[in-house]
């Protein structure tokens, strides 16, 4: 009994379940992959998942690796796939990680599935925006009304980001400068999140490296838009006694870094948890079938599948919401950094 409960919990705690070898043996004795592989589904891969009838379900992506051989000389190797790298004799497979036979990896620049989805989303966002801006240049939407459902939908999103997010949070004449960046971020993240809902696709934002990259870019945009007042508030807070400044300055400096860190973690955790939830709930079917027989498995599948449908709808909403929240918080932080303070009022505020 204890073992059963523990197994259930382990599945929910994103480990690939310990009973997986059973299903793997049933389903396909040649494949090493378990049927429910929670970590494998959310992790980054060196292949691009496609329907099973194309190339056995996987299109391998090239590996580009900077590495150091046993003598300490730097090497650069490029292979069409991990398999080719192992065949070349320079690399070997250690626990599914490509390692040089002698020496060590300095920098793994391989193209992975999450990177491909990142690029695809950015390409979609850029193509869509350029196509739409050409329509506006021709006069649709400026001289006459926007034409077609597509342009209308685009305008709804664009005007929402410009008016409700950017102009509402960044003051005055500075706001319009940040619209291109924030709109790109919104479209890119929204596409990445929505791609993750498609069958066989991977959610690029469920990877901390992707969200951290976005957050680092946001960090630099925020800091470079900082005014003199912003930096004064960080290093020498006006209107408070000096001993308090000794406490405030480290806190403010820490605050500069926690903001983008929170951005990265928020997006990552939200997208990852949605994905894990769906896989775990579907995984319950197989666990019940394993422990209580096939009938139990079928009966649980009714509950599991209907819950998954609802979760999918929720995930579609969360995908757009998280893109919006990332954009909104970046805009708020830029607005806080770019704000011009009026010192006379300020002194009064602090005295009060």
């Amino acid at each position: 009994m204890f073992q059963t409960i523990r197994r259930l919990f382990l599945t929910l705690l994103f480990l690939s379940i310990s009973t997986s070898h059973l299903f793997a043996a049933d389903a396909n004795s040649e494949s090493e992959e378990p049927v429910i592989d929670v970590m494998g589904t959310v992790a980054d891969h060196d292949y691009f998942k496609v329907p099973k009838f194309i190339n056995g379900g996987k299109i391998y992506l090239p590996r580009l690796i900077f590495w150091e051989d046993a003598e300490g000389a730097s090497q650069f190797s490029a292979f069409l796939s991990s398999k080719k790298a192992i065949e070349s004799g320079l690399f070997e497979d250690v626990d599914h990680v490509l390692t040089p036979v002698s020496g060590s990896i300095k920098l793994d620049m391989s193209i992975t599935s999450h990177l491909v989805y990142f690029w695809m989303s950015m390409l979609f966002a850029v193509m869509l925006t350029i196509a739409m801006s050409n329509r506006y240049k021709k006069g649709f939407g400026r001289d006459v009304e926007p034409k077609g459902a597509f342009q209308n939908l685009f305008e709804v999103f664009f005007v929402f980001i410009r008016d409700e997010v950017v102009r509402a949070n960044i003051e005055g004449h500075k706001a319009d400068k940040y619209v291109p960046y924030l709109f790109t971020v919104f479209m890119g993240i929204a596409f990445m999140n929505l791609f993750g809902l498609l069958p066989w696709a991977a959610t690029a934002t469920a990877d901390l490296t992707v969200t951290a990259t976005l957050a680092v870019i946001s960090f630099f945009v925020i800091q470079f838009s900082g005014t003199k007042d912003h930096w004064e508030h960080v290093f020498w807070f006006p209107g408070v006694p000096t001993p308090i400044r000794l406490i405030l300055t480290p806190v403010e400096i820490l605050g500069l870094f926690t903001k983008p860190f929170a951005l990265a973690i928020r997006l990552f955790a939200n997208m990852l948890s949605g994905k894990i939830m769906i896989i775990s709930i579907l995984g319950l079917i197989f666990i019940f079938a394993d422990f209580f027989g096939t009938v139990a498995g079928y009966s649980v599948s009714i509950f599991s599948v209907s819950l998954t449908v609802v979760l999918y709808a929720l995930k579609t909403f969360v995908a757009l919401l998280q893109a919006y929240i990332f954009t909104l918080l970046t805009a708020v932080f830029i607005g806080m950094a770019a704000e011009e303070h009026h010192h006379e009022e300020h002194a009064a505020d602090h005295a009060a």
Partner: protein
Amino acid sequence: MGLLAAGIGAGIVAIGAGIGIGMIGKAATESIARQPEASGDIRGAMILTAAFIEGVALFCAVICILLVFFGG
């Protein structure tokens, strides 16, 4: 022990974040009921504040995940 600590920790985080977001929701619906014409602004402020609370909760979730994997 790491798993136990992570589980209890995640539970407490969920309680705290739930209370926090619940209070935001309560305040927001009350103020929308009082002043329906300001519902757009209130909704924006509500989502922003909820996002901050969620941020704190997710920090703790990350700590729980670290406990699961490295807590022994």
